[in-house]
């Protein structure tokens, strides 16, 4: 009662304290599942993905589970998959990149034009294209980090700039697949096919998987990865805690530019030709963002896993192909994909809630 009471002395002697340990007794399957979901957030989109596959499998039968259909999905998502990995990195820093698709298309055009217009060997044209992608990424990064402009605006502007440069530089001319095949086949390298248990894969698909796995490792298990999360989570706090915000952001945007360059190379492998008017330039950004968000990465940064983004891309791919195979006409497919995007995220939220 009196303020002269030396009450703090009570805690001067340390009692043997025990950690309040959580019980390690037998666990039910449900609570193991719980724990798994908590430690691996990418499991949620994986569940949605599997559910989608099962439903389409039931409706479409063996047609859907044929090696042909299943490899087709991988073929069809390879570009979006690579772009989604890039986009996920940016979104983890609480940014957004509207220019990813345009950079990919421009890089493919540069690889093609550098070979065909200036006669540079394809083995050199590809690195030149990748370097250009990295440079555009660096420009984005500098504007975001140094001038502190909002990423949305920077990449919105860059999207328009890159797309315009793409058309102006290429004079809207397509380089035909046949011509590439004869004079610069290395440009189509990622289109190389190989068979694995009846299913046909391309090196482009392998590259996509590699990009996702490497990024997943780097984000989880290196200091740089932790810094990316910290900057996205609370940039002020990260800076106060000793993270170099500028270096982190610059490196993220440059890596993203490089990955977009890879996506451009993947595009040549997939389409055979080099075309400046590829749709990826216009809607690649929205496709990539959709995959990322369906994959459970928060648009506010700092939360989510890159593997989730990859599953997100697959979910959209499965829906699209499944609906087409089920015979929905294009306008109805378009409508149903809208419904399914919302449904997928609803299921995702619901799983998170019941297991919270």
């Amino acid at each position, binding site marked *: 009662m009196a303020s002269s009471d030396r*009450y*703090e002395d*009570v*805690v*001067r002697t*340390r009692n043997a*304290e*025990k*950690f*309040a*340990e*959580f019980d390690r007794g037998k666990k039910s399957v449900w609570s193991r599942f719980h724990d798994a979901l908590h430690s691996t957030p990418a499991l949620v989109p994986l569940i949605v993905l599997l559910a989608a596959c099962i439903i389409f499998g039931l409706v479409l039968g063996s047609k859907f589970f044929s090696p042909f259909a299943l490899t087709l999905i991988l073929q069809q998502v390879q570009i979006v998959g690579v772009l989604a990995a890039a986009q996920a990195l940016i979104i983890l820093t609480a940014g957004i990149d509207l220019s990813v698709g345009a950079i990919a298309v421009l890089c493919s055009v540069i690889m093609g034009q550098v070979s065909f217009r200036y006669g540079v060997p394809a083995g050199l044209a590809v690195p030149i294209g990748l370097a250009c992608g990295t440079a555009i990424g660096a420009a984005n990064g500098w504007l975001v980090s140094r001038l502190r402009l909002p990423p949305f605006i920077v990449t919105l502007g860059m999207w328009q700039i890159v797309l315009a440069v793409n058309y102006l530089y290429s004079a809207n001319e397509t380089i035909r697949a046949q011509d590439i095949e004869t004079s610069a086949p290395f440009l189509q390298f990622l289109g190389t096919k190989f068979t694995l248990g009846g299913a046909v894969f391309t090196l482009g698909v392998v590259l996509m998987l590699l990009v996702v796995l490497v990024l997943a*490792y780097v984000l989880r*298990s*290196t*200091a*740089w990865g*932790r*810094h990316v*999360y*910290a900057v996205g*989570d*609370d940039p*002020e*706090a*990260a*800076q*106060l*805690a*000793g*993270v*170099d915000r500028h270096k982190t952001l610059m490196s993220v945007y440059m890596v993203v530019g490089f990955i977009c360059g890879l996506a451009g190379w993947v595009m040549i492998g997939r389409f055979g030709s080099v075309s400046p008017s590829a749709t990826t330039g216009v809607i690649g950004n929205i496709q990539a963002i959709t995959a990322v968000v369906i994959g459970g990465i928060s648009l506010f940064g*700092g*939360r989510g896993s890159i593997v989730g983004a990859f599953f997100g891309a697959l979910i959209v791919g499965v829906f699209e192909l499944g609906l087409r195979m089920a015979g929905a006409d294009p306008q109805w497919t378009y409508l149903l994909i809208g419904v399914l995007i919302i449904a997928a995220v609803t299921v995702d939220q619901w799983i998170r809630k019941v297991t919270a």
Partner: protein
Amino acid sequence: MTTPVLEARGLVKRYGKVTALDHCDFDLRPGEILAVIGDNGAGKSTLIKALSGAVIPDGGEILLDGKPVAFTSPNDARAQGIETVYQTLAMSPALSIADNMFMGRELRMPGVMGKVFRKLDRKRMEEFSREKLAELGLMTIQNINQTVETLSGGQRQGVAVARAAAFGSRVVILDEPTAALGVKESRRVLELIQSVRSRGIPIILISHNMPHVFEVADRIHIHRLGKRLCVIDPKAHSMSDAVAYMTGAAVPEGHLEPA
């Protein structure tokens, strides 16, 4: 008189219409615990933000071991061994306790995994964190992989204090480190402060808890209206004096030290 470790002359910082620092001076001597006290809004946090590179002052200069320095980011100050617990704690809420403890100075695995693949050594980081938190008596943290956003207010503060004490090598700055702490945990922080000092590292302690300040401080810097009013010796002055000075109820007689 020895050169101060950290010194500031005539610091000025304005925020729009508000003057947070108004030609403020500051000295930290080697090996001492210097308390900084003052009313809410007096400018204490702004002062230590300027000293630790988190805020770039509009005027005045900062000297480290007598040499002028110009920190442009907290990283610059950290590189010089100045470690700070900010009032806002500076944690990444979505990351784990261990991630936050080691933010910016992560430990890598030994051998190839660490050198080539730059893999983090999570086990070592977690063990170290657990140990440091146990020292503070934060036994109630049930899971070292909990994200910081799920910690209670006091637990969060404990993590921040443990981080600064563990890594500070030249100066440790603590902005109200016990504000959210319980009786036992506060006590542990005071012990920790004294053990840091016994390693020869000087400490700046901002606190509103007078008994604590008078218990551990070697000197007390009294801050009022954006500047240093005076510096007093806790052995020669009573808490009542200190409170009277800092609230403006009394004016310090003469100048106790060049303020």
